[in-house]
């Protein structure tokens, strides 16, 4: 960061202001701008709700009650946040390298199918081994899928946004083919699924709450990702490569391995989300795996500005908004797509706010007038 902060003992910065004030000012930008943008987005959404003749106050009150107001609704929101944490990491990690990967849905779907297949194949083994194997299978499938996107990007210059999108559609077709064909449980008539997992191979809830262990896994994954990006040399190298590939190569960084490694890890997290969806929620792999978590994860990652720690509260927020959709529909006679409109508005406003960074003197002590 700045040299005034690095030289911690100095109580006054170069401009004569208290160093602590400068320290706060430099960091405030990353909090103030997204929060103000979030508020602006909610105000715009209020205008929209007013325009269709409903009360925004009642809407936000209902949203609070449906998503955050009681222990029951908080648990519901947390359950929905769990896959979003991992899906968002699938966007945030490649973003550190300057890559826009939007095909996490494909890794989720294939991770789920691979986990279900592994669970069936190892049926009979002790439960912790089966769950471990399922996790590894899901992460491997997702990691290979998104890692391939990274490899194509680096070695063939194939645009990662388009290729990940194409591969997400291919993955969904592949899942349908496998679930309707070789992996199909003949007993699943209306909704083709794989063999249901035995109860001992299912992942249960965390003690004292109705939220499955996937939430803890997601939070740990976010914290580990933050450490990887902020505290290790690989994370540092990735940020350099994300800024300027040529500069990174001149420095002797193995950009190819970095890209494949980061995208592979990103895909592994998304694959893990699919595995959890199978092992903790569905009990088998079927078309419900493509529920759009991958796409909401994009929104979460962008709202969190690709900071893995910020993903945790943002995923909870969006999980809560998502969870309140049903209540809004019933209480206010609004379509269930109301929350989609809100999400879309927040997304646009947050992206627009990117243009504001670095524009305000208040956040940049180097531009302050010397105090008299």
């Amino acid at each position, binding site marked *: 960061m700045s040299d005034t902060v690095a030289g911690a003992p100095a109580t006054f910065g170069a401009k004569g202001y208290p160093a602590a004030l400068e320290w706060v000012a430099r960091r405030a930008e990353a909090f103030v701008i997204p929060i103000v943008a979030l508020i602006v987005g909610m105000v715009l959404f209020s205008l929209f709700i007013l325009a269709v003749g409903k009360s925004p106050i009642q809407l936000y009150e209902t949203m609070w009650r449906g998503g955050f107001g009681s222990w029951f609704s908080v648990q519901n929101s947390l359950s929905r946040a769990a896959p979003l944490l991992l899906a968002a990491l699938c966007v945030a990690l490649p973003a550190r390298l300057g890559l*826009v990967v*939007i095909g996490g849905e494909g890794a989720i779907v294939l991770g789920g199918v691979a986990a279900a297949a592994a669970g069936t194949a190892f049926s009979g083994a002790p439960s912790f081994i089966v769950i471990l194997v399922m996790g590894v299978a899901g992460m491997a499938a997702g990691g290979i899928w998104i890692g391939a996107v990274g490899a*194509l990007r*680096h*070695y*063939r*210059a*194939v*645009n990662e*946004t*388009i*290729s990940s*999108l*194409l*591969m997400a*559609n*291919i993955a969904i*077709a*592949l899942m*349908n*083919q496998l679930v*309707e064909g070789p992996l199909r449980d003949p007993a699943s008539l209306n909704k083709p699924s794989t063999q249901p997992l035995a109860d001992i191979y299912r992942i249960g809830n965390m003690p004292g709450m109705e939220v499955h262990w996937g939430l803890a896994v997601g939070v740990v994954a976010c914290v580990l990702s933050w450490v990887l990006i902020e505290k290790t040399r690989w994370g540092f190298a990735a940020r350099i490569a994300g800024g300027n590939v040529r500069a990174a190569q001149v420095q002797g960084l193995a950009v190819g391995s970095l890209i494949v490694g980061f995208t592979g890890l990103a895909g592994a997290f998304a694959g893990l989300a699919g595995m959890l969806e199978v092992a903790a929620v569905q009990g088998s792999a079927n078309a419900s795996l493509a529920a759009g978590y991958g*796409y909401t994860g*994009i*929104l979460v990652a*962008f709202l969190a500005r690709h900071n893995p720690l910020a993903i945790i509260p943002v995923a909870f927020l969006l999980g809560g908004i998502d969870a309140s959709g049903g209540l809004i529909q019933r209480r206010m006679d*609004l*379509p*269930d*797509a*109301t929350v*989609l*409109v*809100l*999400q*879309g*508005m927040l*997304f*646009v406003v947050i*992206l*627009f706010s*990117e*243009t504001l*960074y670095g524009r305000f003197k208040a956040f940049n002590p180097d531009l302050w007038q010397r105090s008299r």
Partner: protein
Amino acid sequence: MDATEIGLWGVPLAILGGAIRVSTPFIFVSLGEAITERSGRINLGLEGTLVFGAMSAYAVAVMTGSPWLGLLAAAFAGLCFGLFHGWICKFPKVNDIAIGIALMLFGSGLAFFFGKPFIQPSAPDLPAIPFGAWSDIPQVQAALDVNVLFLIGAALAAFLWWAFRNTRAGLILRVVGDSSDAARAMGLNPNTVRLAATGVGGALAGIGGAYLSLYYPGSWTEGISSGQGLMAVALVIFARWNPLGCFAAALLFGGAGALGPALQSVGVTQGYYLFYAAPYILTLVIMIATSSPSRSLAGAPGELSITK
């Protein structure tokens, strides 16, 4: 109406018919995207525009009884979405790809929001021309029932191909797309040109949506688009930003999409879903084969972020 009556001939016929029927939204969205991308921007939000266009076309057609007014409404709605994308992307540090993803979500959300009351009623269809009337075979008649929008799309592709090369507007568009600096040196404002190009692209995507809800499949549901708006973006790259190529690629994508159902109708059910993925696999393979780390894609506009 059993395809086996005319034997295996039913397969190519069904593919042809499917290609004509399914490809029309692809044609419009990809032509719109080609115009936008030629100006140096990419709008991934056309998927949302397509869905919103489908909804607004259907709603207006239900309320007024005229499918053509519905079409107009869809084009206007698409124009608004496109202009919004074009306007917001002129600000520094605003990423056009990310804004596109956001608008995809926003457009579909708005369409579902306002489209709820229109899921039940039925709207008048856009007319089709029975080119197959000479034949007694129902499959031939079905395959050659060509919607007017398909013909308009074909004409538009040819016109754009000509206009990109031979008109002042086409030249301006290409200059802006290839180099913002060169455009500024010529006294052009790249942002204004891109705003117009994105607006027109959005309007065409809206028309593509109108085709979905007013002709095939011909009703408004929330699952009306199976990702045509997104595939069209890949399709434009596949077509090398050439409008005639877009038309051909749209037919190919439509035909590939019809392959699965056509084979199923003659009893080939193996790999049904993989056939569904055929267009995506095709696009990916072609992108891999033609991309290279040492040069940008042939024919790519120089300012386009996705090919840098």
